[in-house]
């Protein structure tokens, strides 16, 4: 008899597998989310120059190349140990804001929009971005326009939308000019209108998703992100803060360059993706989440008026504690888009953006450097060691999706336990498993720095270890 079930999950970046193991009573005994890719960036970067690293590591991902580019440039800054011009920091910030907008828009509208607005039980032939276009053409158009705005910010700064090689150790290659600045400015009002009406739409629908909020990864965990000096939401600089499920700060002002003192990584034989945990709490008790949800839980305020208003409504959902449901990643993403647009509005008239002094020229002054910033999916670390000539001897990349590995596993377990009945892999269960993973907007190719694009597969395994069913979703 066929005893295991596989279900591939689509509309995520990369390739993974879910297995659900049944106990003798037919109930879920164990559910796991496996990442089954390997790439080896950390290995083949060795022997390359630190100046090339932004260009090389940007190729880790086509969705968030900017995140790797900026993080790598920051690790390079630490190795040059020269003062990066303020204008370069501001320009990089501007690009990262554009990146967060475009990546979040992709996740919300293109990847998850169909699940959210067409429903989990809709025919998969319709439950996709094309179905969304047909049923809710305005929503789909908004999503495309908003993402295009974020990408245009990136393109106007770095010369191309995907894989710009513009940030370099010591700064950026060239500044912004008046004409390109005006174009960004012109796009702002439209982008703001889109996100405001999308937030209204999401909030109107929130009551419909009560069950999803309760089952799509609602469990206590720690949350980690960068926050600014005064506790405001931060995406480019700042220090690391951990809060617990009660919303209490348990560690603050941690130097991100010393991440190895507070983060450790466990390895499981069934996944190529490591399992980072908060060192002090041990494995697996030190489970923490990163990304939009975490950033909204760790920060004290967004720091911009409209986003702060929505943040207070978001917080009222969890009664002052941390928001613990991963379903709320979607909500958090929308609030972050709004905050990013407001921040661009504030930054765009800064005269520094047109300054010609955007790069500090220096040789190798430190043999080790860590770059940290907030990628759309969470905190990203690039850590390099170089020789006297600036050639990479060793590299460690801790990718945003990786931090959420334990949380994604727990989410799969929670959804399987709630919806799997009698060993039947119904469409509804499969769709929700997918949706649960998709809430994290995971980038598996990034997280293992992996190659190729394959769907997520779900396997149902009987008590004796045989595969009962195996499915991939379209």
């Amino acid at each position, binding site marked *: 008899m066929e005893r295991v079930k596989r279900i591939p999950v689509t509309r995520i970046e990369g390739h993974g597998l879910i297995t659900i193991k049944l106990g003798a009573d037919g109930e879920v005994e164990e559910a796991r989310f496996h990442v089954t890719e390997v790439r080896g960036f950390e290995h083949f970067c060795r*022997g*390359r*120059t630190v*100046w*090339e690293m*932004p*260009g*090389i590591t*940007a*190729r880790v991902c086509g969705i968030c190349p900017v995140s790797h580019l900026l993080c790598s440039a920051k690790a390079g800054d630490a190795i040059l140990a020269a003062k990066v011009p303020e204008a370069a920091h501001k320009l990089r910030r501007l690009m990262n804001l554009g990146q967060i907008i475009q990546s979040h828009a992709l996740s919300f509208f293109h990847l998850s929009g169909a699940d959210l607005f067409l429903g989990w039980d809709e025919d998969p032939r319709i439950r996709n971005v094309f179905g969304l276009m047909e049923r809710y053409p305005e929503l789909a158009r908004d999503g495309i326009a908003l993402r295009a705005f974020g990408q245009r910010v990136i393109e106007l700064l770095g010369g191309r939308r995907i*894989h710009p*090689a513009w940030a*370099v150790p*010591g700064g950026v*290659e060239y500044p912004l000019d008046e004409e390109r600045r005006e174009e960004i400015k012109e796009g702002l009002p439209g982008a703001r209108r889109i996100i405001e009406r999308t937030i209204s739409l999401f909030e109107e629908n929130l009551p419909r998703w009560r069950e999803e909020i309760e089952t799509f990864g609602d469990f206590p965990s720690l949350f980690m992100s960068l926050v600014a000096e005064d506790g405001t939401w931060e995406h480019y600089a700042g220090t690391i803060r951990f809060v617990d499920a009660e919303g209490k700060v348990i560690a603050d002002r941690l130097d991100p360059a010393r991440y190895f003192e507070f983060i450790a990584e466990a390895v499981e034989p069934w996944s190529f993706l490591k399992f980072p945990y908060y060192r002090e709490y041990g494995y697996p008790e030190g489970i923490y989440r990163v990304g939009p949800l975490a950033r909204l839980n760790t920060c004290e305020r967004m720091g911009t008026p409209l986003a702060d208003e929505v943040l207070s409504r978001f917080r009222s959902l969890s009664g002052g504690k941390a928001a613990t449901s991963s379903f709320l990643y979607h909500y958090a993403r929308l609030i972050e888009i709004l905050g990013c647009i407001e921040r661009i509005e504030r930054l765009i008239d800064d005269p520094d953006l047109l300054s010609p002094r955007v790069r500090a*020229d220096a*040789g190798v002054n430190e043999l080790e450097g860590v770059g940290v910033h907030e990628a759309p999916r969470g905190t990203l670390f690039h850590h390099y060691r170089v020789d006297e*000539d*600036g*050639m990479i001897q060793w590299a460690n990349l801790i990718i945003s999706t990786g931090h959420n590995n334990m949380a994604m596993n727990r989410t799969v377990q929670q959804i399987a336990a709630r919806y799997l009945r009698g060993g039947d892999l119904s469409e509804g269960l499969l769709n929700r498993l997918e949706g649960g993973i998709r809430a994290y907007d995971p980038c598996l190719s990034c997280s293992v720095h992996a190659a190729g694009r394959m769907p997520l597969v779900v396997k149902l395994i009987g008590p004796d270890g045989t595969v009962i069913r195996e499915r991939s979703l379209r």
Partner: protein
Amino acid sequence: MITLKLDGREVRAKKGQTILEVATENGIRIPTLCYLEGLSPKGTCRVCMVEIANRNGKLVPACVTPVEEGLEVITRSERLTRLRRTIVEMLFLERNHICAFCVSNGHCELQDLAVELGMDHVTFPYRYPGLAMDLSHDDFGLDHNRCVVCGRCVRACSEVEGAFTWGFTGRGIDTAVATDLGIPWGLSETCTSCGKCVQACPTGALFERGMATAAQVKSPEIIREVTERRPRVF
């Protein structure tokens, strides 16, 4: 004067001119790689191969073959494109040419040749040799992965700068450029740090330190300018 045919057209040339020179004068482009105006031609890369129709289609490198009375030269044919494309393909798979993050991406003669000749994939397996970089020089870097061993740096160094820092080491497929009998570039006592080798290099193999992806734009024409302006002593 000599009369010969280029692609069926009768042209006149001076004795001692090469086929490449005459073709260029007559507005006919022959692709080249190891050839650089201002340096002595060597004919090593074979990309400028042309056919001699009245010698049974014999293949000769245009950059070093002098014109002769009555030659019927074909510079463009399916056969030539195929051969040139295969040569460029061999260069690509011999070492590790990763355009995506190369300093010379978008400004590379090898890349331009691949585009011109339609070499959009390889038909033989890549060799992936494990080659090192030399970043010991204060101003410049060398990446053997991107070197096509055209020898333009070697000739620029000896013929134009007169420093004789660059030379070759190894034989056959293991041939590589080297500074001062193989010591790190930064330790070289003969190098004047003039940078002519970097400007002469057609790929990202020689580059200015600190260059990021696609940032290295070169001016190989300075080699010709320097040699033209120099008074002839002999």
